[in-house]
């Protein structure tokens, strides 16, 4: 697990911190936030989400509202996916990009209504994203607010999520399809109920007031929803090949390099990074993010170099033991001409050369 202990500042706490400690959470420093890495164990929590239902505290995520007559224009200019395609009550995955095509962040955009968008960003990027959008908004008729402190977020994930949550709300959950959301009351709390997640499983993300969140987490725990930590969140998202900012993508990687062509809509008009992406689309990106399996024993982990003789040709960005597949998997950047499925390559694992092979992704896909 990456450690972030550079600063001596006190750790930030989510509204669920006390309940998490009560429930046996093993707390760690995660980018300046005190969050549980696990409760009962990563494998057990992973299994609960794949087969039943688990709950994650993702209150550290940031929320930014973008409102006004030119809200759509601001989002179109600063991101690579086509925000005009969003209808009210729908959300999509998108990239907030620098002019060089690198990621400021990967984000979710919710369209509440015309001229009213709710943007969910990575915790450690919240301030940066907010300032980026606010600066880009200058001269436009749009109001950008960092409202992160107003929201707690619980991710209830797993095949039984709908069955467990339905008794707590009058909102008909089957009517909320994948990547759509509704606003309503859940367990007495006003909420945004969103059928989204970061696990590759069915489930909901509940945005509620920080005051209400602890009660809801306790209720879910009583109902048998397994409290899950960052450890299982990482194994689940990696099996589903969902990118992690700071590991798999950052300001040096473009969406095309990160194998996210599906969020790049060149035809939508001009936006930051479009020229670079158009060129990469034409010529092929210099490198590509691929999924791999280990052929030798051991796990290729974040930061391990990929070598060819004495030359470093790539790098592992994420790696773990896949609890579902029961083998070592990971993501890595390889030169485009070496990234084909079936290609084999060498990962330097603490000085030792170990072999790996490019495989199709996602590693895990749930049965519909």
């Amino acid at each position: 697990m990456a450690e972030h202990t550079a600063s001596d500042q006190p750790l930030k706490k989510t509204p669920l911190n006390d309940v998490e400690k009560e429930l046996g959470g093993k707390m760690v420093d995660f980018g300046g936030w005190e969050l549980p890495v696990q409760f009962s164990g990563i494998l057990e929590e992973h299994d609960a989400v794949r087969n039943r239902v688990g709950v994650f505290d993702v209150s550290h995520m940031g929320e930014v509202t973008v409102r006004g007559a030119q809200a759509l224009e601001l989002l179109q200019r600063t991101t690579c996916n086509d925000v005009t395609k969003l209808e009210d009550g729908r959300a999509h995955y998108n990239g907030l990009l620098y002019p060089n095509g690198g990621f400021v962040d990967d984000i979710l955009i919710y369209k509440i209504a015309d001229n009213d968008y709710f943007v969910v960003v990575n915790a450690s990027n919240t301030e940066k994203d907010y300032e980026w959008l606010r600066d880009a908004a200058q001269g436009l008729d749009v109001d950008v607010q960092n409202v992160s402190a107003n929201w707690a977020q619980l991710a209830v994930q797993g095949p039984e999520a709908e069955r467990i949550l339905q008794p707590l709300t009058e909102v008909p959950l089957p009517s909320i399809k994948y990547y759509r959301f509704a606003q309503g009351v859940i367990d007495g709390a006003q909420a945004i109920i969103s059928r989204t997640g970061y696990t590759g499983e069915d489930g909901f993300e509940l945005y509620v007031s920080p005051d209400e969140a602890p009660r809801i987490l306790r209720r879910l725990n009583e109902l048998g929803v397994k409290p899950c930590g960052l450890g299982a969140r990482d194994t689940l998202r990696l099996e589903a090949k969902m990118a992690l900012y700071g590991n798999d993508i950052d300001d040096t990687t473009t969406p095309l390099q990160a194998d996210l062509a599906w969020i790049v809509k060149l035809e939508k008009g001009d936006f930051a990074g479009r020229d670079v992406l158009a060129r990469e689309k034409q010529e092929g990106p210099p490198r590509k993010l691929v999924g791999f399996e280990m052929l030798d024993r051991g796990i290729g982990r974040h930061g391990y170099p990929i070598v060819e003789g004495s030359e470093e040709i790539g790098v592992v960005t994420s790696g773990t033991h896949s609890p579902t597949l029961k083998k070592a998997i990971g993501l890595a950047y390889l030169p485009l001409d070496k990234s084909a499925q079936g290609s084999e390559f060498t990962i330097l694992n603490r000085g030792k050369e170990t072999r790996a092979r490019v495989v199709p992704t996602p590693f895990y896909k749930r049965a519909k």
Partner: protein
Amino acid sequence: MSSIPEDNRYAKSHEYVHAEGEVGTIGISDYAQKELGDVVFVELPQVGSILDAGDELGSIESVKAVSELFSPISGEVIEVNEALTDKPELVNTDPYGDGWMIRIRMKDATEIDELMTSEEYEEYIEKESAH
């Protein structure tokens, strides 16, 4: 706090040695397995390897991290726990029993005295977890 067997000695890197005659059985402590979380792979030396105290004897991968294992004592590896190949989780479920890692024919039994007793180790991990 889980119990720390009194008939073992402990290294600062959290390996234990259980000595019987000239044979020392080495594994990692209950505290260490809890810190690592779910163990998925243990790499151990070949039988016949000669280790000095402090040498790396192998590595242990949990879901979340990889850690080196160090031999607290010198000697020849006379047995490795083959069961860990298929069931690395034994390190989690029974660290002092079925989750043992290697047996060493000790070169110098007095090395044991350099290691921490269970009481000293308990004090040591209390300090470490409080930091």
